[in-house]
């Protein structure tokens, strides 16, 4: 195991960005060093290593990576690995960055995941619009074939451009030729997924971490972060900061550290969105007290999820921002589960009524009932995610919602949206 990379140094994953031509295999090996061969690091030792590292999934659910690997190993049948780069969260840019700039790191991780569970096939999935990922991966795969660096067959899969595309069971459904819609579990993909085989699905950032843990060890990984949340992670920062973009931070670091990594705030803030469109709104006053650990965020009813953080400037209207995204999410249901289809539509419609100052008198009581009843009642987390987004908006910006309900749109309502959304959603507004 190489110890060339000094512990505690950041960046880790993004180290290769500064070495120029990162998609190049030679440059990749120069930046990160070689992977340990199977005889140096076999399947069992690799899973043990992942377990000791404490690595958890970076796609949003933070599920322990080693536990997933063990489930796939224990299932009957020849396993298959899926590298999930379907970053359908509109703000998140970390997976696209990895696929485009550091494809070899992701492919190293995918090959290691295959080694861990005894798979001979890997599918790398990304969204249709991500054509730069496709070119970069094809180029990287050609180089790897020439160098005979992989023992696995790697295929690319272009997924539908929908918000739920990257949801595990929806991705399996698409790869199997079905619609981009979640399926009921059980069976879980770890038992029966792609081609009815045990399927190990990891987010591409999780795989990139795996590529470094295999090289440098579990202790090295744990030199950053806390005992509960070790390592580094990629975060996408958007909104009123001087340098929006993807940053690699120490897990559980303070919010202030992250904001200053992004150049600091560029305006007075009205609030913060933590965890993307399934995430939570927090008051701007929380900045001083908040670190990005599970515990600290949970005390504010939040979680970092897929690693998206938005600084909402005070000049923007949080009501208008919330309504647009609620409408977008309501239009992005898979259309399968009654409670989600009806509940998300009713919530979005009522919020829109409030923003326009023409909501029925029962609007807030209705919202309270729906947001209490809806979580957990779909086949996937879509209704729960939308409810978290909406109910934290209602509590954080209670005054503004009340004001809109009474007087209609405010000055900030006409400003440019801070939270991006596909234009189709507005047709319904």
């Amino acid at each position, binding site marked *: 195991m190489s110890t060339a990379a000094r512990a505690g140094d950041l960046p880790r994953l993004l180290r290769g960005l500064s070495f120029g031509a990162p998609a190049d295999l030679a440059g990749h090996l120069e930046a990160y060093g070689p992977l340990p061969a199977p005889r140096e690091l076999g399947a069992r030792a690799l899973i043990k290593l992942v377990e000791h590292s404490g690595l958890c999934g970076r796609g949003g659910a933070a599920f322990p990576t080693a536990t997933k690997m063990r489930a796939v190993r224990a299932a009957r049948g020849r396993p298959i690995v899926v590298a999930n780069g379907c970053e359908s969260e509109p703000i998140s840019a970390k997976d696209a960055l990895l696929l485009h700039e550091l494809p070899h790191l992701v492919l190293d991780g995918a090959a290691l995941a295959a080694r861990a569970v005894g798979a001979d096939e890997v599918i790398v999935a990304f969204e249709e619009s991500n054509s730069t990922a496709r070119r970069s991966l094809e180029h990287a795969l050609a180089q790897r074939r020439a160098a005979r660096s992989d023992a696995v067959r790697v295929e690319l899969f272009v997924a539908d451009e929908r918000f739920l595309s990257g949801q595990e069971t929806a991705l399996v459904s698409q790869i199997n030729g079905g619609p981009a819609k*979640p399926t009921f579990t059980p069976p879980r993909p770890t038992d029966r997924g792609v081609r009815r085989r045990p399927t190990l699905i990891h987010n591409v950032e999780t795989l990139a971490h795996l590529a470094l843990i295999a090289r440098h060890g579990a202790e090295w990984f744990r030199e950053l972060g806390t005992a509960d949340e070790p390592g580094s992670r990629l975060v996408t920062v958007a909104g009123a900061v001087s340098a929006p973009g993807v940053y690699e931070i120490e897990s559980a670091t303070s919010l202030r550290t992250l904001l200053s990594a992004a150049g600091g705030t560029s305006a007075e803030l009205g609030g913060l969105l933590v965890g993307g469109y399934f995430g939570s709104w927090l008051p701007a006053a929380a900045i001083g007290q908040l670190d990005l650990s599970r515990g600290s965020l949970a005390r504010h009813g939040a979680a970092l999820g897929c690693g998206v953080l938005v600084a909402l400037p005070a000049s923007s209207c949080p009501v208008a921002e919330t309504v647009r995204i609620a409408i977008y999410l309501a239009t992005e249901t898979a259309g399968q589960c009654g409670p*989600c289809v009806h509940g998300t539509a009713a919530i979005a419609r009522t919020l829109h009524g409030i923003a326009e100052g023409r909501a029925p008198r029962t609007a807030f009581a209705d919202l309270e009932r729906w947001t209490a009843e809806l979580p957990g009642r779909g086949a996937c987390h879509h209704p729960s995610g939308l409810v978290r987004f909406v109910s934290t908006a209602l509590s954080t910006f209670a005054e503004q919602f009340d004001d809109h309900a009474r007087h209609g749109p405010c000055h900030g309502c006409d400003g440019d949206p801070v939270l991006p959304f596909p234009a189709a959603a507005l047709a319904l507004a």
Partner: protein
Amino acid sequence: MQIRVNAIGCVGHGLCAELLPEWIRLDQWGYPIIKSDAIPAGLEAHARRAANACPTLALRLERG
């Protein structure tokens, strides 16, 4: 034992809430809201009857 609904399969017939009102009520669109706790032993037989009566077989009894 817990009772769980396959929300994809459920189309809101509502029989379950009639057969097991102690544990299942319907939302305003007719879809079941089920208590998540373990079903008391005295209700297990009723829970089984409700699961068997579901026209889309969307109710599942799961060992907790």
